């Protein structure tokens, strides 16, 4: 059980050579072994979505995936969204729309939306709401998150410029 495996995780473009037990989840490996604590755990049973990251572009619940399964994949977390001091348009819209309060669910929502932006930027409002309903937030009542996500989708479709 404590036998560890050496793996390399590629997170936000950077390789992390780590030793993990086979039962270690990707979420725990990111937080504990890669030092990336922006990914949060809200339920550890795959329902709340706080741990959402993208793996090869698709949103994934990192509490439901083992670290060893992610070797070789392109893993993206909230820490990789901003470009140095420049926030991504999505992050900027979250601030402008007051789409976060305690911020605990926020990385999961950002990565869920980021994955959606890349996979299916043309979705309707109803489809967007449906996608967002896979993550939980106790603070905001969601409406501002929906607004920020909508702006990010529209922005992604209409421009390649970063948000002002």
């Amino acid at each position, binding site marked *: 059980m404590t036998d560890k495996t050496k793996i390399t995780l590629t997170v936000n473009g950077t390789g992390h050579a780590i030793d993990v037990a086979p039962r270690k989840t990707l979420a725990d490996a990111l937080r504990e072994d890669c030092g990336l604590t922006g990914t949060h755990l809200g339920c550890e049973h795959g329902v709340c979505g706080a741990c959402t990251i993208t793996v090869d572009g698709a949103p994934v619940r990192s509490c439901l995936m083992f670290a060893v399964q992610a070797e070789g994949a392109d893993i993206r977390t909230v820490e990789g*969204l901003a470009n140095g001091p420049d926030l991504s348009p999505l992050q900027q819209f979250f601030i402008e729309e007051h789409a976060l*309060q*305690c911020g605990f669910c926020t990385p999961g929502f950002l990565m869920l939306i980021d994955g959606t932006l890349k996979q299916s930027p043309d979705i309707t409002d109803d489809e967007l709401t449906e996608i967002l309903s896979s993550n939980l937030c106790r603070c*905001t009542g969601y409406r501002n998150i929906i607004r920020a996500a909508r702006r990010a989708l529209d922005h992604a479709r209409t421009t390649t410029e970063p948000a002002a």
Partner: protein
Amino acid sequence: MTLVGTSLPRIEDRKLITGHGRYLDDIKAPGGLHAAFLRSPYAHASIRETDLSAALAMPGVVAIYTAADLAALLPGGDRLATGLPSSAIAFPLDRPILPARETVFVGEPLALVVATTRAEAEDAAEAIEMDMDPLPVAATLADAVAEGAPPAHLDAPHNKLAQFGFDYGNVDAAFADAAHIVQGTYEIDRGGAHSLEGRGVLAAPDPIGGRLAIWSSTQTPHALKRHLCRLLDMAEDTVTVTAPDLGGGFGPKLVTYPEEIAIAATARALGRPVRWVEDRREHFLSACQEREQLWQAEMAVDAEGHILGVRGTLIHDHGAWTARGLNVPYASGMMLPLMYDVPAYRLDICVAVTNRVPVTPVRGAGQPQATYVMERLLDAAARATGLTREEIRRRNLVTPDRMPCPRPLLLRSGLPVVLDSGDYPATQAAALEASDWAGFEARREAARKDGRRLGIGLANYVEGTGRGPYETVTVRVARDGRIKVNTGAAAMGQGVGTVLVQIVGSHLGADPSRIDLTLGDTAEPYGFGGFNSRQTVVAGASAEAAAKTVRAKVLKVAAHIMDLPTDGLEIDGDRVVIKGSNSGRSLTLAEIAGAAEGLPGYRLPGIDVPGLMATERVVIDGMAFANGCLVAEVEVDVETGLVRVERLELAHDCGRMVNPVMVDGQIMGGLAHGLGNALYEKMVFDEENQPLTGSFADYLMVTAAEMPPVGIVHSETPSPINALGLKGVGESGVIPTAAAIASAVEDALKDLGVTIDTAPLTPAALRAAIVAAEAST
């Protein structure tokens, strides 16, 4: 320039949005150990033998503590006295850190394993063999207070922890003279707070200095420090408690928990950092919950719909231990008649001990239940009198000409309740207008043609905010000219830091980037923390006072140096300048702070007390009452009992707003929680009080898909009881929601004569109500 009233972007956002927040589990503790608790599988059982041998042999295990082991580490006692005092309490129920002989709820911590990793600690906790004999439990709240009920604690005489009430006016005469009497039995269920981040604590001893540093995801670091010092018998200056970024609080994190004490004690004993982070299942089983109440109530009205009296009984689920006191049922009883003219009122409250997780405030704290009951009674009275629902309310609401309006009720401090300000009828009118209440019948008709059944409902509420007595705020201009604000107020994710920056900044240069905040500061000996929608009001009042004092000092020193009158100067950003002059003459705050410190052998520059610093603890005894009116429009499916909320329109008044966008955010979050209470969130227990809802898969939280569009109309009637005219708003959204939705569902089904008297109104519950109505016609 004032920043109060502007929607300043939150100072908290940037680090949170980039993944650089620092929540409890993000804090590194090199060499640290991990803890897991063995939790009771029984709602009530006596504890016999414990065999640790198998668990101790598990990999990674460093130590295991049972109740006896832990008691030895707690020279100041092994119980947590966290209850607020009340003479109505019949017997003490202070919770043990770990119980030795008897466990009284499923999830109660019984033993603690410390191991190298969390997984190892959890594995070993499972391997502890604890021999227990199950004891009888009362299955429901009503059973718990019935004659001959099995006591929730073996040595307790019965389960009636407290019987108290409210009584004024001649209630029986009011009912004798009434043109109409309406009544109901109302059942509100138990739910959780479910901050997305659970509880957690990290304790790191410094064996050389003999100090202990604690980080806890708590709303009240000061309270935790007090308990730690007492139970560990440590001096105040050897313990620091820090609340890192909180992933939400919503009530349960306001009480000090056994886990926090146990982790601190074991870390100290082992001389190494120990961490425990609650998982969701533990949150379901052991974080405090609220809401379950059983009401029987009736209302007497005259022929014109004026309320003559309200009377009834309330059984309140207290859970297994006294973790906060009688504040929740007290708030319920006090709130019920508060905003309407109720000339006579009698409520008998019975607080029932049950074999369930202790009950303490969850966002709303007893107020949603009382609002539910009062508003349900008013809907019934409207039917009885033939008045519309809005008209009967209008006739009974306290009117603005009577503000401030003393009520024949007392706060728990014994002071009379005074509604401080507000125009309740105007707020209701604003909600009706915003929701196009008058146009609803046309919408109903149009929907009916499409085979859809719509309903509309409303509920008024007041929210008691700004619980005193005070919060400490220290404002200081540091030597480098930066403004330091330290306070006992604690952040739990709602942005109180931004609020204080706006208030302080308004007096000291209006540049938020120059202000450094320390929240939840336990180096300051006096403080409380976050609960009861209090911090903007009470910390805001102290911040305002402290900032003004410091401003006056800054200007005096500057005037002295510049040889100008103080009223010719102003603070702009990082410097003091001459009003209306472009001479370019100015002094930086850093220069002024340096001068204000004084020089050996010289007189202070224009001030009597050195330094640019002020500490204020503005005492506010009364409460600031926010008010509002919520209109809900719903669609109901009669066949399935499914309710869909189409729209929520809230008109409200929380006094002067510091940050309107943040006010909207608080309201929206509260509405979502209230929507959960109205339709979805329900802790389900079996006959043995075993929780059946232990994950988000079976306890349903509102998601983006259920949350309807929300309209919010603000009005701002300043509160006269604090200098800025503020009122709290953190719990506003949650209070009227279940009541307004119940009203709307009843309206949608009015042709069927269905009465709604439960929350949450699950599809099964609504179907049962529909079937019952069909059977009785």
